[in-house]
Every structure is written in structure tokens, then in C-alpha cells.
């Protein structure tokens, strides 16, 4: 499991961006839970990795923030900016290429179509 986490590490930003592209806007806790739910507990994004990634993408202009008062506290939502949307497309292409290449190396007979 721990080794698997290491493999995911390099794709963390892409995963977050893809989720935001699908969901529109999300807050930190929601992202961690959504990833857990989609991967059926296989992948666990730690808060120590999630927030620095979110804050950096926000400072880089890929994410915009929106704040709302929910249950007596302030909730910070993230959503993709225009440049974030473009960046997501290019990162997804890179990730898909990477997966395809890995697949070719690991299992040369299997063909993936995406």
C-alpha cells in the first residue's frame, strides 16, 4: 500500500485537477473522501500532501477559491481557472501517455484505448 502511494505521488496535482474538472468545485476534505470512494480505499490522499498542492496551484493561478459559511464555519472551495482547465487537459494527456507507456512495458500484449 505504501509503495503504491509513492507511485500516485507524482500524479497528485493531475488527480486533483481532474476531480475539480468533473465536480466543478470542491473543498479539501471532500477531495480526500472522493478519492477514497472512487478507488475503494486503495488510494489515500494525506492532508500533508493535499493542502500544499492546492495552495501551490492556487498561487500559480490554476485554481480559484470561493468561500462559504457552512455549519457555523468557513469552507474554502476550489475550482479550476481558465488556465487551470487548459493545464488539466495537457496534464491528462501526459498522464495517459505515461500509463500507456507503462502498460506497454509491463504487459506488451495488452492494448489500451483512450
Amino acid at each position, binding site marked *: 500500500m505504501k509503495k503504491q502511494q509513492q507511485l500516485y505521488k507524482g500524479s497528485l496535482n493531475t488527480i486533483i485537477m481532474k476531480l475539480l474538472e468533473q465536480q466543478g468545485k470542491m*473543498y*479539501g*476534505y471532500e477531495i480526500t473522501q472522493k478519492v477514497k470512494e472512487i478507488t475503494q480505499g486503495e488510494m489515500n490522499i494525506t*492532508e*500533508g500532501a493535499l*493542502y*500544499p498542492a492546492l*495552495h*501551490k496551484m492556487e*498561487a500559480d*493561478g490554476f485554481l*480559484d*477559491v*470561493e*468561500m*462559504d*459559511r*457552512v*455549519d*457555523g*464555519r*468557513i*469552507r*474554502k472551495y476550489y475550482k479550476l481557472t481558465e488556465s487551470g482547465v487548459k493545464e488539466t487537459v495537457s496534464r491528462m494527456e501526459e498522464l495517459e501517455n505515461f500509463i500507456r507507456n507503462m502498460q506497454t512495458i509491463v504487459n506488451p500484449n495488452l492494448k489500451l484505448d483512450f
Partner: protein
Amino acid sequence: MKLSAEQIDFIETALIEKCNFKDFDDVRMELTDHIATEIETEIENNKLLFDAAFVKVMTRWNSMILPKSWSRYESVPYMVCKLWKSLDWKFQFSAIPITLMVSLLAYYGQQNGISLYVFLLPILVLGVLANVYLLMSKYNNRVKSTLSSYALQKIFGQTLTLLAFLIINAFFISEGIRETILPIFWPSTYVSLLMLGKAWVMKKHIKIENQLLKVI
């Protein structure tokens, strides 16, 4: 079970007093919400009392939010420190090669009869404008975010440095020494670029400030 206002205040106070989140309103509120949600989940799923759930959740968070004594920003929470370090790379360290490139360009210009001030003056003017913007922001700032605290740290010291280089440059101009001041060119350009970078960060903070002012 949703936490009460007092319990949420308790979490926020702990973040301020134990983890030094006083000057980072945006991240503090974000973490308060996240930690509160985790505590609520602990209370619901594991039937814990607030105090026990709080200790359990905070123990998990400690390494990410406590300031690290070995860090360059030793009183800054680790999570904020990580962002600041990436901003350092973007602005402080990248200003060094840019300064060297501009200096080189100025040097070759000088060799071809173009005064050094053709390069230096626009950079200095931009640096001063950025500095004025930062000083004004310092007084008009209504909330403190991770970005504003980064942009405004050591602002007075840096203003004095910029002022000192302005005076030195003005002295050289008044003395008619125009072509032999390349050593002065380098720090003047660097400080000006630094100011421009910080002004850019401060501009990003305005968006966060507007959002925060809507809800507090």
C-alpha cells in the same frame, strides 16, 4: 453531530496559539473546517467525546501544521512554510539569473555606447512603483492571508534597501559618473525584481481577501 460554535472556536484558538496560524486567516479557516469535519466523523463513527476526538485528530495533523525549528521560516506553520518556499523559488531565486541576464545585456550595451541607465531606470521605476503598491497594501490590508503575509514580510527593510540604492544611483548621476557602476546595477535590479514579484503575490491575495470579507 455538528460541532457547536464554542467547539469550533476551540479548534481555531488551538491553531492560533499552538501552531502560530494567527497571520494566515485563509488557511486557518480552511483547516478549522477540515479538522472540525474530521472530529465530527470521529464522534459519529467511533462514539468519542469531543475532547478525545480533538486529541486524536490533532495528533494526526501535528507534523503538518506545527512550525519546524530547522526551517528557514521557523515560526511559520509547516504547511505555510512549504508554500512560501515554493514562492521563494519562483521569485527570490529566479530573480538571480534574470538579474544576471539583464546585467550582461547592460554590459554589452555599455560596450556599444548605450548608457547603463537605459536599462537601470525602467527597472528601478517599476521597482519603486511595486514598492509603493506594497506599502499601501500594508496599511489597507483587512485580512491576513498566506500570500499577503509572504508579500509583506520584511517590507520595511526591503524598502530601505531600495531607497539606499536609489540614493546611491542618484549620487552617481549627480557626480556625472555614468558608465562605471555595474556593481551597483546588480543589487538595484535584484531588489526591484523582488518587489515586482511580491507585488504580483499581493495582487493574488486581493481575490482571497474579497472572498474572506464576504463571509467574515
